[in-house]
Every structure is written in structure tokens, then in C-alpha cells.
């Protein structure tokens, strides 16, 4: 084995320019991969993290509400929501439990006709807005609502209504039995959450939406947050066993649409991006390794004549390819990690297309790549995969060189 390692190391030095070019190919591939995976992290994972928190890492609702949750049926509510919140809040792993009502509303200024502009109205305790959604970070003017009669609205909705902080809007919703339910609310804050659809949402305190929906003391759902959103399904299983939740549907975010398919979607996107980069970079490695094999046909024949086995010949070229990949991978991860770190500070503007992403999984117009340790490790090992992809055929070709090649008279 040490003979092969020694030979591989020496061979890498014999054509330095080509070795450096191959290392750079792998480095560029790995670097690109690091940035691409970090960007995906920035776009999807962070959006997923936000969206899963916003809709509850674990959500407790009436089973009929769960069946028709796209319609947000106010009639399928939880009248004893305080009991459920109290029972859940004492459980290990629970950071908070929040009663929540969301309903589609139209909005207008007092001097406008009602019915032109739509918004999704949230009603929840202020703690949900500050501790889970961190809405205070997105306030561009004013503040969050703290009392009845107050509303904070997204920037798009504010522009559509042409109101600013201090203005008054008439919000028309429904009660749980379907009757019209108008409310006169003062705008106390305008928010910019980086996505046009999300910026069409409005936020009031829970009591306001309870009054509007005529669900006194109740809510349509209880949203539970936990520290480790990836393990929310385990918490959901734990909460299902509580007597207080027995009559309700308890589901983790990744057990509900659209998130139940997003995990595999994310894996698929990552796989496609990584696969394309590994394949293209692998072709680069293949090209130079194959040239090396063809140039060294006679030399390989000599070593085969001297007793080098086919397996050892394959290993020799694999060592060369993997050494190139390891060096290129380290350089690429360092370069790509540095680029991702820089971009994580300045951001990448994706334009209007991203802004039109659905509010359920909001993608911000400016994304900030997020390079995690596992991204760097993954990119490095995919760099090794590039060498395996690119080194496989040349190594196989080299192993099939017959020892009689040594007798052919060329140098």
C-alpha cells in the first residue's frame, strides 16, 4: 500500500500544471457546491424554519378544522383553548403554546369602498408575535399591537390601502356562524417581512380576533413551539397522549401539508444541484486522469510486467484522484465557505420572482446563504465523490492495460 501511495504522490508532481488545473477544477466544483448548498440553506431551510414556527411546530386543532384547514373554518374551533394551552405548556420540550385565530379579511380606509383589498388576519398573544415570529425585527415604522382596536399590517397591504402608522382601517371579517364582522382598527405598525405575499398579512391581539370571530375565550388552533423543530414529530406524539388534547388533532409541522412533502423536495433539490456539479466536475477530473492514463500506458505496462496487479493499478489511479480531490476539496470548501460567509453578510437579491413565493413558505427577495458545518463537510465529501466519478473510468482503463504493452516500443 505504501508503494502505491508513494507512486501516487510522485505522479502528482510530474506534471504540476495539469495537477494544479485538476485540483482547481475540483476546488471550483466544491466551492460552487458549498455556495449552492449554503444558498439552499438560506432560502429553503430558513424559510422552512420560519414557516414551521409560524404555523406551529406542533399544531392542535379540531379534527374537522384539520380536514378543511385551507378554508380556515372558524366554526370548527376550540372553545376550551385555555385548558389545552395550560396542559401543553407544562410539557418537556415545549417552549410556548399560543392560541391563534387566522381568517381571511378585506380591508379599506374609512373613505374607501370595502372589499377591494384582501389580507390574512392573525390574532394571537403578543408573545407569539415577539418570541416565535420575531415580528418586532420586521417593524419598519410604529410598533406591534398591544391592545384591542390596534393592528399592525404588512407593507404591501399598507401600500394597497395607502395608509401609514396612525391611520385607521376598516377590516371586514366573519363570525364563526358566517355573519359579517367589521372592525375599526388603528394602524400602529407597518412590517416588511421581505416577501410580498407575507406583507399582505395583518396582526391583532388574540382578544380582537376572538371578538371579530365571536369565539369568546376560544381559538381555532393552538400553536406549540419547541427548541428543535426537526424533532417536532416526537413532541407531537408526546402531546397526543395528554387528556386535554384527546378530542383534538395533534400534528407536527412536517406531518401536515405543505411541509410533509417539502422535506423530500428539499432533499431532491439538494440532490439535483449536487449531482449536476459532481457530474460536471467529475468530467473535468475524468478528462485529465484519462490523459494521464493514456500518456502512461507504456509505463503502466512495465509495472504490470514487473508484477503490479490489476487491483493495485486501479488503486494507484484512485489514490491519485482522491489526493487531488482531497486537496481540491479543502481549497474549495475554504474558498466556497469564505464566499458563502461574505454573501451571508451582503445577501443575494433574487428579485421579484422570489417575492411572489407563497406566504406558507416565504422566500425573501434577498437571501442570505447559510454555511453550516454539515454543509462544508457534505461539500468536501462530494468533492471526493467528484474524484470517484472522474477517476473510475481512467482507473478501470489503466487496470485493463496488458503487461505486454511494456514491450511495445514507444516512450
Amino acid at each position, binding site marked *: 500500500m505504501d508503494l502505491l501511495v508513494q507512486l501516487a504522490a510522485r505522479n502528482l508532481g*510530474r506534471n504540476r500544471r495539469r495537477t494544479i488545473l485538476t485540483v482547481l477544477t475540483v476546488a471550483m466544483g466544491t466551492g460552487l457546491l458549498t455556495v449552492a448548498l449554503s444558498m439552499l440553506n438560506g432560502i429553503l431551510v430558513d424559510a422552512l424554519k420560519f414557516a414551521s414556527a409560524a404555523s406551529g411546530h406542533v399544531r392542535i386543532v379540531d379534527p374537522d378544522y384539520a380536514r378543511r384547514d385551507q378554508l380556515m373554518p372558524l366554526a370548527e374551533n376550540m372553545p376550551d383553548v385555555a385548558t389545552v394551552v395550560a396542559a401543553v405548556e407544562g410539557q418537556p420540550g415545549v417552549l410556548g403554546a399560543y392560541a391563534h385565530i387566522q381568517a381571511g379579511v378585506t380591508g379599506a380606509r374609512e373613505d374607501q369602498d370595502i372589499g377591494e383589498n384582501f389580507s390574512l388576519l392573525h390574532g394571537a398573544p403578543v408573545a407569539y408575535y415577539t418570541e416565535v415570529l420575531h415580528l418586532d425585527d420586521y417593524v419598519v415604522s410604529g410598533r406591534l399591537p398591544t391592545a384591542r382596536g390596534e393592528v399592525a399590517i404588512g407593507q404591501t397591504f399598507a401600500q394597497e390601502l395607502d395608509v401609514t402608522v396612525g391611520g385607521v382601517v376598516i377590516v371586514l371579517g366573519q363570525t364563526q356562524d358566517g355573519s359579517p364582522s367589521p372592525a375599526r382598527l388603528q394602524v400602529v405598525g407597518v412590517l416588511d417581512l421581505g416577501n410580498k405575499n407575507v406583507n399582505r398579512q395583518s396582526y391583532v391581539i388574540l382578544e380582537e380576533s376572538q371578538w371579530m370571530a365571536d369565539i369568546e375565550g376560544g381559538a381555532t388552533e393552538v400553536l406549540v413551539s419547541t427548541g428543535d423543530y426537526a424533532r417536532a414529530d416526537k413532541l407531537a406524539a408526546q402531546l397526543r397522549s395528554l387528556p386535554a388534547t384527546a378530542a383534538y388533532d395533534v400534528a407536527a409541522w412536517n406531518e401536515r401539508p405543505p411541509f410533509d412533502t417539502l422535506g423530500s423536495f428539499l432533499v431532491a433539490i439538494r440532490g439535483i444541484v449536487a449531482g449536476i456539479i459532481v457530474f460536471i466536475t467529475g468530467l473535468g477530473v475524468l478528462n485529465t486522469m484519462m490523459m494521464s492514463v493514456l500518456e502512461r500506458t507504456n509505463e503502466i505496462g512495465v509495472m504490470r510486467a514487473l508484477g503490479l496487479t490489476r487491483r493495485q493499478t486501479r488503486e494507484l489511479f484512485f489514490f491519485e484522484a482522491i489526493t487531488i480531490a482531497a486537496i481540491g476539496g479543502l481549497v474549495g470548501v475554504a474558498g466556497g465557505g469564505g464566499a458563502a460567509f461574505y454573501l451571508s453578510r451582503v445577501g443575494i437579491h433574487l428579485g421579484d420572482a422570489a417575492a411572489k413565493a407563497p406566504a406558507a413558505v416565504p422566500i425573501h427577495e434577498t437571501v442570505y446563504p447559510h454555511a453550516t458545518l454539515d454543509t462544508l463537510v457534505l461539500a468536501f465529501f462530494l468533492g471526493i465523490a467528484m474524484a470517484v466519478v472522474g477517476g473510475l473510468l481512467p482507473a478501470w482503463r489503466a487496470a485493463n492495460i496488458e503487461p505486454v504493452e511494456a514491450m511495445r516500443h514507444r516512450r
Partner: protein
Amino acid sequence: MICKLVGVTKSYPMGDLLVQALRNVTVGVGAGEFTVFAGPSGSGKSTALNLLGCLDRPSSGEVLLDDKNVASLSDDALGAVRARRIGFIFQSFNLIPVLTASENVDLALRLAGVEGPRAERVESALKAVGLQDYLHRRPSQLSGGQQQRVAIARALVKSPAIVIADEPTANLDSTNGEAILDLMREMNQKNGVTFLFSTHDPMVMSRARRVVRLKDGEVVADEAGAGA
């Protein structure tokens, strides 16, 4: 006999044709011989050498090494036979360019699986060919004659049963060619090393103790050489 071809035929496909490089050839090499396979291009001398050196397999017939038929051995088994029992000297020297002279010689020992300290054997082999002062030179830092001497040391260091030399002087000028032949002849006479050459160089044939002449894939003469 150290090695022997018995009724060997070797055919190669060439386009739509099947070229017969050897036709029912029977010829052997005994211990301590200094034998030349001679003949023009296409006579089959290199094919015969490849078969006796276990580099290739016959289409039919037997290849005996120490009275055992090696024609049916697996690739790896043939490789092990070559590594331990056969030394090779090539026309183009064929040293590994990234290894020094001593590392090239050591390579033969390592591939033969020689256990224990090897440095002394390597130095001794290079000293025997007069290159004790060139141990750490790479092939590119050596002349053609010096490279072929390293190749001889590489072939001999593992004490093989036979050394197969494929036109070993073809890429050397006459002075260096003669010097190399003298060296091999000396190894043969002093140490009893068996040499088998292929050549069409009259100078090489003049040093041989036995000359086997091939033509169109057949042995047409097997006679004592001028060096006998």
C-alpha cells in the same frame, strides 16, 4: 529447461484477418544460457519472448516454466510469476520516471514481495552495474546507457530464473550497446544468470552462445552462436 514453448500457436486478430504470429513452435531455454531469438520484423521473435516471459498467453500449446504449464494461470498468478521469477530489460529502458535509480530497482523487490531490508540488495545490484554513485538520480538525469544499466540492475536484483531482454541495445549507440552486452555477458558467465534476447542486431547475435532464428512464425534454425 527453465522455460519452454511446446507446440505453441499464437494468433492475433487484425481487422478482419487473423494473423498467425507463431505456428506450432517448440523451443526451450536452459539454465545459464545466453540465447538470442533472431529474425526480421514480423518473424515472431517478440511474440515468443512475450510468451516465455509470461506477458501473454498462447492461442494453443503449452508454456512451461520450471516444467509447469503457466498458460492457464490467472492474471494475478501470472503477475506473481513474473514478479518473482522473471527479469525484464526493455528496448526503451522503461524506468519509472518519478522514481530514482535505487527506487526503480527497489520497485522490483517490492512488487516481488521481498520481505526484510532491501537497501543493501539494491545498492549491491547498482554497484554491480557500475552505478553506485547514481543511486539518487532520476532517469531524466541519466544517459541512455546508464538507464539501461539501472534496468539491468532492476532485472537482476530479485535473482530471477531468467532475464528476458527485448532488443536491449536498439536505443543505444554502438559503444554503449557493446558495453551493455559485455555487462550482461559478464553476469551470465560469472553468476550463471540466464539471458534470452530478441534482436536483429548482428552485434548482439555475435555475442550469443545460441541463436534461434525465426521466420514467419516458425523456428527455421537453432544453432550455436559466435559467442559460444
